[in-house]
């Protein structure tokens, strides 16, 4: 009844929802700007595809394996780099993503730049829907718990959070690990859907797409990640029906990031305060102390 193309779109929306909501945990809830989420996707994709192809793992097992390998790398890279603040973390994750891509391009086992072909098609609409539901359930449980509260506190004010007894590095690493796990899961689903993977699709562009989904939908909102993933996946495909607009897709991504930050930093459905409302206390303090500029510190 549904055409395969439409099913394919829904599957891609699902995979991207997993990618966006796991990245949302890192960016939107914990406030750590990671622009290398594609690295976890590619690690998950390659790891799960390789065990399927070479060791004939059952689908679920290979997905889990891919996700766990991605988690391992998430923890390995996260433990040291998460000490870094904002900008440095962003550039370190970007660097990590490029390193992963270059390594996959040069390894023999991954097929190098030619790519890995012959992966059996195992991802179906049903598996993707189940995976999305599990992802959202798990992330929701984490967010609405003691851990989630600690993560949001880190986003709001890392120094204050540490003063309140939160081991910020530990929680950031946990958040990175969970994000990497689901990133890897998304990658595994991706590999077993397309039956072919090649490193160049997991580059900076892919990370930016994920970031766009999170930002458009709304940082720190579960529905936001879903809506962002739907929009960013479906709109370019819809644009295929409108002809030449496709040319503007990448330009539009860039514009979305700039304009959203300026006009609606909370995203379409995010629920943040507007920027000039951020801290009455700080503003008062600044006025009282006779200082001209505010802005968050630390």
């Amino acid at each position, binding site marked *: 009844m549904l055409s395969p193309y439409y099913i394919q779109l829904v599957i891609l929306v699902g995979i991207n929802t997993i990618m966006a909501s796991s990245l949302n945990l890192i960016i939107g809830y914990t406030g750590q700007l990671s622009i290398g989420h594609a690295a976890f996707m590619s690690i998950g994709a390659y790891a799960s595809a390789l065990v399927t192809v070479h060791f004939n793992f059952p689908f679920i097992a290979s997905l889990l394996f891919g996700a766990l390998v991605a988690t391992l790398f998430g923890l390995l890279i996260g433990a040291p780099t998460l000490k*870094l603040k904002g900008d440095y973390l962003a550039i370190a994750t970007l660097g990590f993503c490029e390193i992963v891509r270059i390594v996959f391009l040069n390894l023999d086992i991954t097929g190098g730049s030619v790519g890995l072909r012959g992966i059996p098609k195992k991802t179906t609409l049903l598996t993707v829907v189940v995976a999305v539901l599990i992802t959202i359930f798990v992330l929701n449980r984490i967010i609405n718990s003691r851990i989630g509260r600690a993560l949001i506190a880190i986003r709001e004010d890392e120094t204050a959070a540490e003063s309140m007894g939160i081991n910020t590095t530990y929680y950031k690493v946990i958040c990175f690990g969970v994000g990497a796990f689901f990133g890897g899961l998304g990658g595994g689903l991706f590999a077993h859907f397309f039956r072919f993977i090649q490193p160049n699709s997991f580059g900076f562009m892919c990370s930016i797409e994920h970031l766009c989904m999170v*930002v458009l939908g709304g940082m720190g909102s579960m529905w936001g990640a879903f809506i962002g993933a739907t929009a960013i996946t479906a709109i370019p495909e819809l644009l295929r029906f409108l002809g030449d607009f496709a040319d503007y897709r990448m330009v539009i991504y860039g514009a979305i990031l700039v304009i959203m930050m300026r006009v609606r930093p909370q995203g379409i459905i995010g629920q943040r305060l507007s920027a000039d409302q951020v801290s009455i206390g700080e503003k008062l303090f600044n006025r009282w102390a006779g200082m001209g500029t505010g802005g968050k510190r630390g």
Partner: protein
Amino acid sequence: MFVQQLMNGVILGSTYALIALGYTMVYGIIELINFAHGEIYMFGAFVGLLLVTVLDIPFFLAFLLAMALGSLLGVTVEYLAYRPLRRSSRLSALISAIGASFFLSNLALLIMGSQPFSFPNPFEAKIYHTPLFIISRVEITVLLSSLILMIALTFFVQRTKIGKAMRATAQDKDTASLMGINIDRIITITFAVGSALGAAAGVMVGIYFRTVTPTMGFMPGLKGFVAAVLGGIGNIPGAMLGGILLGIAEVMGAAYISSQYRDAVAFALLIIILLFKPAGLLGRPAQEKV
């Protein structure tokens, strides 16, 4: 061969150093990675190319005009994408910066297409042999002009009134504004100068590698940032040193490890530096304010 590779590294590094200067100056003032800097470099190369090929303007004049237009673009980006977010969270500003970079490179791709444009060589092709290495006229030009620009910048920052105001603003924005320094103006000037250097680097790389493409800014932009971090971000001599060292590291990595992993070498170096000496080689450790 070692000396030749060293020379290759220094020449490559001097282009990174020029890009790194723009990053380091902007970061020093507003603590933001200006991701769009790589695109300004690309823009500079295109402007230089169009001026020379379409309008037939003498090379040296085109070089200066490219710098001027590059700084205009830098200031525009600052005005549209960064200034409105000066009081928002760092995260918003950073995302906006990434968006601006992505926007500019893809806009260029849309307008210019992906076919590389060839840059006419304004210099006569000539090679000089020394006992230890061979160097071409273009390479000498690239090396010398980077050197001149760096010296000019150091002079500007250390000796002029605006330069002093810039350093004061980088140290402490609040105090600087109390001292009557117009912070907005200083930020604009910083972007203008940094972008002019980026555009200059673009033109020089254009004549060195002979092609200009809309996507040429991405990698060198990142490398320039790596160089800035390596030297100690916010530190002008550090950016120069970082650029040269990164160039040498990459070339040596390509020469003695594997040329396939050249970019990986640069990024691995970045991560290692961030972990073990986050202040870079010449930077002072920043004290977190509580």
